[in-house]
């Protein structure tokens, strides 16, 4: 039995190191002096770690603004998603209303439509409304990306709330809104956190839509800015690695902190069929 355990643990260690290597290398190269990572012999760790690339990004590439854009947009998307989807998800789970099952089925069916189909007309709509190149333009795709999925997520979780609890509150004369605010919302807290992280990460990492609707550099989100910088600065390895660190690290830390909620949501969300 012993050699088998050794083999499996060795495999896992190897796979873990291979998986983390690109991220660790990014961190290491971001602390190197310009040109250091592409010299011979190949260097894995910086000779004398420096924050030069980070200073360069903030002082010359304006990355502070992009960071701010990403934070603002991701927060706004998160708030919007919670505002719209939580009450709807609860209603689909626990309140009887006409056409409930049919509407829900149509929405689930719509999950197979790739969001890119909606992008071209949405772009035109925004253009005629004079909204291209605004934060608002980025946020209009949130319902398509987080809406149906979010409602589904909240519904699956709300199904576990015992009906007796809601009935008892109704007997006591509480209105549906009071029940939602006082009884349901506190019970839903874990799934609200889950939906929040999903929306935040989704908006932070989204690339195609912000690339389409943002043409003004000042409004770029980090991924869009990074893609454009990487086309200009092909030779500047270390600078680009620092940019990648700034893009990846915030969401990675958020994930590490709230991992339990994220994984739970992933499992609920993938039981679609």
């Amino acid at each position: 039995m012993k050699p088998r355990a050794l083999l499996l643990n060795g495999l896992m260690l190897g796979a873990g190191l291979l998986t983390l290597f690109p991220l660790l290398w990014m961190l290491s190269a971001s602390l190197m002096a310009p040109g250091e990572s592409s010299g011979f012999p190949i260097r894995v760790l910086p000779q004398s770690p420096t924050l030069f690339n980070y200073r360069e990004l903030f002082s010359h590439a304006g990355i502070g603004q992009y960071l701010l854009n990403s934070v603002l947009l991701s927060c706004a998307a998160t708030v919007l998603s919670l505002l719209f989807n939580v009450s709807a998800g609860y209603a689909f789970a626990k309140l009887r209303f006409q056409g409930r099952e049919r509407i829900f089925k149509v929405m689930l069916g719509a999950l197979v439509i790739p969001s890119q189909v909606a992008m071209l007309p949405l772009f035109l709509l925004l253009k005629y409304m004079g909204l291209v190149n605004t934060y608002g333009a980025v946020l209009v795709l949130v319902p398509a990306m987080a809406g149906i999925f979010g409602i589904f997520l909240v519904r699956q979780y709300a199904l576990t709330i015992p009906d007796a609890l809601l009935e008892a509150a109704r007997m006591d004369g509480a209105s549906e809104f009071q029940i939602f605010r006082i009884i349901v919302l506190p019970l839903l807290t874990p799934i609200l956190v889950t939906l929040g992280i999903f929306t935040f990460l989704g908006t932070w990492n989204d690339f195609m839509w912000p690339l389409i609707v943002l043409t003004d550099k000042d409004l770029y989100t980090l991924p869009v800015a990074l893609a454009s910088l990487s086309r200009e600065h092909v030779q500047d390895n270390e600078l680009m690695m620092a940019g990648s660190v700034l893009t990846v690290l915030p969401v990675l830390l958020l994930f590490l902190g709230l991992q339990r909620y994220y994984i739970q949501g992933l499992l609920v969300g993938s039981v679609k069929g």
Partner: protein
Amino acid sequence: MNTQRAAWCFVAPALLVISVFFFLPVLAALIMSMTDFDIYALADLRNLRFVGLRNYVELLQTPLFWQALGNTLYFVVLGVPLSIAASLGAALLLHSRLTWFKGLFRTAFFAPVVTSLVAVAVIWRYLLHTRYGMINYGLQELGLPAVDWLNDPQWAMPAIILFAVWKNFGYNMIIFLAGLQSIPEDLYEAAGLDGAGTWQQFRYITWPMLGPTLLMVSILSMTGYFQLFAEPYVMTQGGPVQSTVSVLYFMYEQGFKWWNLGAASAVAFVLFAIMFCVTLLQLRFAKGGEV
């Protein structure tokens, strides 16, 4: 009655927003795909004409579209099984009774999933660099020849597939892990008493019990892999010699570079139709397999 009204208050805002910003645009895209919406119509809507299915017919006669479709299929057909195999392998390791530090490794395997695609694509572009990239360095250390990953039409797509598998395998790994944990332990105990080895236990217990999970994972992965866009945009810009132009990359260029919005809508719908059919096929195939 009171509940009815309250329920509608709860769902109406979300339904309204989803309809206006998703369902209506999808319908509009269908109509747009039957018009010659281009840069002239963008300037003045009176230049817009209804052309029926002409966009679709012309699309089927465009060599670059077929190339993009071929590239995307190559990415899906090779990438999805590889990615699923990696996910299942990692899940089996994490599920094994013999391995240590499971929580730590689970987080490590999952980390690439939450990173921004653009940022990690930038990293991989340097890792894949012909002369000073770590991957070629590793190959040469093993005595293998260096590969001109991103500049050789033969290797650019495999390089992107390798990258995509690394980025995505953690997601399905979590789903597989949940699937493995739901298989009753006594099945293995009984099989062990009957003298079944590890491979036989995997073949006759684990694999069939994972059937529904496998189906779901392959449908989810496939729809995700069909939407290839940011990888070629950042790593190769569709090159070399258009070997990494994907359907969505083609749509992006048609729509937002050349402003052929009508033709681009047709591309979007063809992609949707293909994804839909492949999903149906998988469901049908799974049903047949179960009997």
